């Protein structure tokens, strides 16, 4: 007897509801049909094209940094995204890989000659050692759940930093690190150019992506997902939960260490501060943004965060990014077009009016000029209020801006919200021009913190992740 109401069409309603409308849906379906390997090949090709198009050394370095961050995000994804373990000491594995390679490829140990193994000898050794380290660090995870593990691993990361800075300074170099590291060499060849390192790294990351994908689609991947879902139930379903947690730590450590070795070789020197907690937060930001649990998400997030931070180094480019983001968000989220036009016109008018009024009251208040360079700065000259001494003004505006943003988020009434958006945008621009653009190093950090907060509140699954259902 066919059960009443259970009909394939009805049962698939949920899937249909999730599909995107119009062209986006068609695109999504197209992507789903294309196999995984062709997609990887295309990505690989695009990556390979990059050095061909932009041979500038600085840009190559940016590319290398982006790939390194992507690889680190991939490794972190194993413990955090797949096995659901919060590893806050992950940065130590990266450092371990780098220091390991450095010790085996420099003058540091075994004076006066030092050890100068070839890459095909030293890298596997470092990776195996990293796997063991990962197991050791993962041992507390047997008894600890989520939060406790987070603290222990965070402390481990901190201890690593102290260890490399203060302990055995003659062997480990102390705060000055280890200099003069050999390049990657083997079989008579050496990698000496940035381009070479870029390609080496690209191949490495493609291998890692492929391996992780294959692992994800295997019994181990299934087991990790089961552990993430419900460790107790998994334990009852023949899955040795603790062993899988250790495996997750171990694999993550290996990936991080690989990134570390390439980092050390390409830099030529390592310092303890290359592996500090702010960098760890960066990796997390990349993973969260891209989507934890998804290989593509990890890579995308890592690349995006890395490149964005580069943009923020230069005030002009940072300006493009800042204003671009605001405009993009408005365009993407504001409907109907009339409303968008209203906001744009309103903000512009508000700005000029405010500038004029404040300028009339006190010329010192608008004597400064916007810090964005180039045509953006010129455009904004008469629009944004920038006093001669922008510092305090910027600070006050910053605090007001945060309060206003919070208030805006809480508001429900649509019209009031839209109207309030205008002064808020203007305020943001003022803050940006008077302060943020000038000190990009701190701006980046603030941005990273903001990314984490906003993503978790708005879209916890990241850009490419899938929404998870949790039973609390």
């Amino acid at each position: 007897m066919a059960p009443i109401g259970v009909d394939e069409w009805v049962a698939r309603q949920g899937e249909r509801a999730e599909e995107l409308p119009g062209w986006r849906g068609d695109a999504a379906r197209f992507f789903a049909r294309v196999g995984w390997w062709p997609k990887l090949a295309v990505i690989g090709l695009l990556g390979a094209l990059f050095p061909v198009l932009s041979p500038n050394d600085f840009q190559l370095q940016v590319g290398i940094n982006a790939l390194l961050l992507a690889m680190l995000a991939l490794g972190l994804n194993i413990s955090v995204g797949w096995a659901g373990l919060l590893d806050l000491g992950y940065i130590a594995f990266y450092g371990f890989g780098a220091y390991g390679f450095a010790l085996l490829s420099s003058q540091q140990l075994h004076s006066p000659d030092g050890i100068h193994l070839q890459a095909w000898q030293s890298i596997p050794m470092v990776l195996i050692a990293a796997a063991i380290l990962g197991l050791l660090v993962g041992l507390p995870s047997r008894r600890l759940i989520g939060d406790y593990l987070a603290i222990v691993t965070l402390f481990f990361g901190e201890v690593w930093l102290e260890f490399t800075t203060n302990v055995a300074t003659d062997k480990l170099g102390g705060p000055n690190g280890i200099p003069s590291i050999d390049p990657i060499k083997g079989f008579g060849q050496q990698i000496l150019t940035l381009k070479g390192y870029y390609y080496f790294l690209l191949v490495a990351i493609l291998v890692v992506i492929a391996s992780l994908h294959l692992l994800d689609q295997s019994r181990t991947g299934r087991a990790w997902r089961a552990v993430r879902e419900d460790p107790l139930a998994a334990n009852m379903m023949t899955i040795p939960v603790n062993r899988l947690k250790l495996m997750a730590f171990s694999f993550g450590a290996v990936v991080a260490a690989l990134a570390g070795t390439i980092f050390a070789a390409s830099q030529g020197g390592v310092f303890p501060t290359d592996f500090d907690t702010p960098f760890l937060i960066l990796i997390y930001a990349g993973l969260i943004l891209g989507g934890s649990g998804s290989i593509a998400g990890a890579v995308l997030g890592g690349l995006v965060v890395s490149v964005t931070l580069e943009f923020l180094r230069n005030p002009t480019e940072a300006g493009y990014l800042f204003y671009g983001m605001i405009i993009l968000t408005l365009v993407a989220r504001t409907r109907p077009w009339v409303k968008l036009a209203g906001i744009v016109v309103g903000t512009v008018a508000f700005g000029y009016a405010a500038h004029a009024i404040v300028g009339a009251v006190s010329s010192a208040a608008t004597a400064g000029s916007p810090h964005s360079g180039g045509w953006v700065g010129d455009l904004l000259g008469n629009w944004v209020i920038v006093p001669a001494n922008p510092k305090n003004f910027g600070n006050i505006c910053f605090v007001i801006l945060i309060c206003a943003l919070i208030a805006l988020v809480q508001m429900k009434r649509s019209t009031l919200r839209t109207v309030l958006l205008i002064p808020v945008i203007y305020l943001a621009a003022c803050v940006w021009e008077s302060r943020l653009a000038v000190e990009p190093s701190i701006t980046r950090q603030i941005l990273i913190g903001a990314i984490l907060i906003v993503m978790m509140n708005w879209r916890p699954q990241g850009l490419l992740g899938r929404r998870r259902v949790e039973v609390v």
Partner: protein
Amino acid sequence: MAPLLELDRVGLAFGGLRALHELDLTLNEGEIVSVIGPNGAGKTTVFNLISGVYEPTSGDIRFAGESIVGKLPWQITRLGIARTFQSLRLFLNMTVKENVMAATYGHTKASPPESILRLPRARREERQVNAEAENVLSFFGERLMGYRWDQPAYVLSYANRRRLEIARAMAAKPQLLLLDEPAAGMNPNETLEMTELIGRLRDERGLTILVIEHDMHVVEGISDRVVALDHGEKIAE
């Protein structure tokens, strides 16, 4: 013939609280035994003891003649005892098929490097596990077949979730199946189906089954024997 499962004067105490007291229970192969009793009588505790969540503070538990006290839950499941949970514990974000395939971890051996390189053993086991999952899911008729395989478990209706839990437990290839309130929250039709299902589990798949149930219709319909518990003690059999 030696009993499949023996609980020998099993007791469990949490500090001063005595959850179970000197419980004797035997189960022979091919039997379906129901455990009944008021809430809080200790029924799920018995399951937890058998499956290794708790260790008894006194007494012994033997499966196929050998003591399983002190073994880890996943070891016990691999020896041949699988269970379901009173409040469902599915892997909600995994697909129906993946839920079932997850439980096959215990009898597959491919290591991570083998999986990555797709060596013959890994490929063979994947095919085998796939076939096993489909086989197990087919036991439930058309409800968990076809398009259902790739749906995430959280879209399933309550009754289907209960069925999936049983399917997942079956995939672990047990000899003994512990069902914790399999018909809880079901309407009379579904309850009837569940009763038939439990019978078929024994007849078609050769499983020995220990069931916790409140619904006396189910208990009457399937049981060879009934054990009643109250306040952690057996009061009738």
